[in-house]
């Protein structure tokens, strides 16, 4: 009984959490006229409150318009994927070894570096924006995708998350491997990565979700419209084309949803690991 009561009480916030997704799905098949009618207080500043209903006359017109008649959407979609893949590749290349080094080795200044990592992780983008801008300008990387990829490659959150997983690997196992003659690289690739893979995947998943919705860095460092990611395209859609905008959001959210389904287990572990105090 208690369990049922608990379940029912949790359903309400769960439903509230799912509502945006339902809004997205139903809105993508609702015609523009119906959406204008439901959202007229928002779009046209009318009296009353905006309402939301299931579409009376569902239509795939928005999908057709988006997927067949909007090359700008695809331009920005692939820009987003390019940035995402670049950042993830960089984090795999630099972040994972950095986390392994922090977790597995003792060296002078290790605690200082770790605290700097924590500090940098807590700083909002606006704090480091100017220094990054000046650095990128001196490297002539402004208005290129590298201006977003390079800082993302060396983001601190991913190594921090992976570090938590690498910390859980028993030191004795590593010592035993060393005693058996395994080199450090061998230990990293044969012991560290397999055991910490869940953490790595979780971190990369979270990084992927972050890259898909990245807004501030592209807005600051990229000027040419043809290099904008999808996160900058969606706000430009006119409110009078709300149906089209919702459909675009739905399609843009699909990769994240699919990846979530793929890495759900790893994500849960990652979120838990991120919440555990060191």
């Amino acid at each position, binding site marked *: 009984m208690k369990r049922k009561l608990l379940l029912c009480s949790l359903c309400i916030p769960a439903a509230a959490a799912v509502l945006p997704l339902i809004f997205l799905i139903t809105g993508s098949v609702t015609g523009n006229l119906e959406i204008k009618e439901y959202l007229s207080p928002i779009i046209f500043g009318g009296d009353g409150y905006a309402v939301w209903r299931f579409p009376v006359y569902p239509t795939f017109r928005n999908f057709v318009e988006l997927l*067949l008649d909007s090359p*700008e959407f695809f331009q920005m979609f692939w820009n987003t994927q390019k940035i995402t893949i670049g950042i993830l590749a960089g984090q795999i290349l630099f972040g994972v070894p950095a986390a392994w080094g922090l977790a597995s080795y003792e060296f002078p200044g290790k605690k200082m570096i770790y605290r700097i990592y924590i500090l940098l992780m807590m700083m909002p983008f606006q704090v480091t924006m100017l220094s990054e801008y000046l650095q990128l300008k001196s490297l002539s990387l402004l208005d290129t995708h590298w201006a977003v990829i390079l800082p993302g490659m060396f983001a601190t959150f991913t190594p921090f998350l992976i570090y938590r997983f690498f910390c859980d690997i028993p030191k004795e196992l590593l010592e035993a491997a060393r005693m058996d003659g395994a080199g450090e690289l061998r230990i990293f690739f044969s012991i560290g990565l397999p055991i910490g893979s869940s953490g790595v995947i979780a971190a990369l998943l979270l990084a992927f979700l972050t890259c898909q919705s990245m807004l501030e860095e592209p807005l600051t460092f990229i000027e040419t*419209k043809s290099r904008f990611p999808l996160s900058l395209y969606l706000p430009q859609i006119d409110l009078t084309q709300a149906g089209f905008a919702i459909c675009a959001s739905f399609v843009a959210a*699909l990769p994240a949803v*699919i990846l979530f389904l*793929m890495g759900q287990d790893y994500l849960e572990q990652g979120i838990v690991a991120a919440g555990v105090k060191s």
Partner: protein
Amino acid sequence: MKENHKKIRRMAAKALAWFFAAMVGLTIVSRAAASFTVPRVITKIPEYQSVSHTVYCDGTLLAKREMAIVAEADLLIDTVFVSVGQRIEEGQTVASLNLEDLSEKTELLREEIRAAEQEREAQQTNSSVALKRAKEDLETASSCAQRAVDRAKEEAESAAAAYQSYQNMLGSRDVTEEEYRQSVALLEEKKAKQEAYEQAQRDKETALRDANRAMEDATQSAKQSDVKQPGAGQRQKQLERFEALLAAKGNITAPTAGMITEVIGRAGQKTTDTAFCMIADPGSGLLFSAQVSREDADLIEIGDTMTLTHNNQKVEDVTVGALKTESDGSVTILADVVGTDWTPGSSAKMELSGKPSERGFTVPLSALRSQDGSYYLLVLQETQTVLGTQKMAVRVDVTVQEKNDNLALVEGGGLSGESEVIIDSDRAVSNGSQVRLWEK
């Protein structure tokens, strides 16, 4: 549970792969669809030059002098030997008449003339006889009337004398009734004879008057019979012409050398009282005549020079001699053409260039667009869009200074020698439209 999660992971992986594959395909499809809808345009850079007005039209070459070849009316034409445009010599036969018909008409005319002459002679004879008789009647009437007057006078004098003598006999004594009656009777006799005498005189006047009138009528009639009937002279001349035609065996010849410009008579038809054909004298010179619209005529002045082209031959510097406005508003241009051997009646093309305007940026007329009475151009401009550098049509308002059939001289809008003006497109283009260059 773990198996379920694995299954979900596998399906999600497949779904992700299919999603990205679909996105790749849809990227290509959307690009292709966009390329179909984007208008393709042809552009041209404005040229810095002046606009000249050239009037082109076709006209006719006319001979300055034309003569008519006439033939007698109502004669049957056997053969026509000439056609329009043919050059002939003086005396050359242009047509032949039917001899039989000509002979018949000639004979008919002769008979008419003869009959008229006979009638006139008969009339003359009758008139002279009538005059002679009228003279005789006058003389007779005069002598008879005089005798009657004389006789009446004698009687009146006799009766007066008898009365007077009776009165003398009676004297102043008293008369008897018998004597009184006798006296009255003599008096009445005297009065009657006097009246008879006066009547005789009146009768004489009347008789003489009537006889004189008859005489005058007879004289007048005699005079009229001497005058010939109207038309007799014309018939005589016509007869002479017919006889001349007969002598020429029915051939109609050209009185002068020249070129046939019009043939009115046809074989098998009868001649009329108008010209049989028209002959032009090429040596008299040619006149070029062409009709242009009112708008084109406003660009032409007397004294302007033109170039005429006929049969691939050109004659330049032909001066406009006259401009004549017609009733329908068009204007006829006339110009003397000298120094050519062109044929009257043939056509020629005229090319006349008016005074050029001032120099400025010119665009083809196809580039000029109008809205609400004002003109504008669509100029190509590169803009940065999400899809990269793209070309867009941007409206530029201009003022048209001058224009002819091909070009317009425009001002304003910041036009330069580097502006690319859209002159043609494969679909409608408006301000702000995305476009791309069309390679035809």
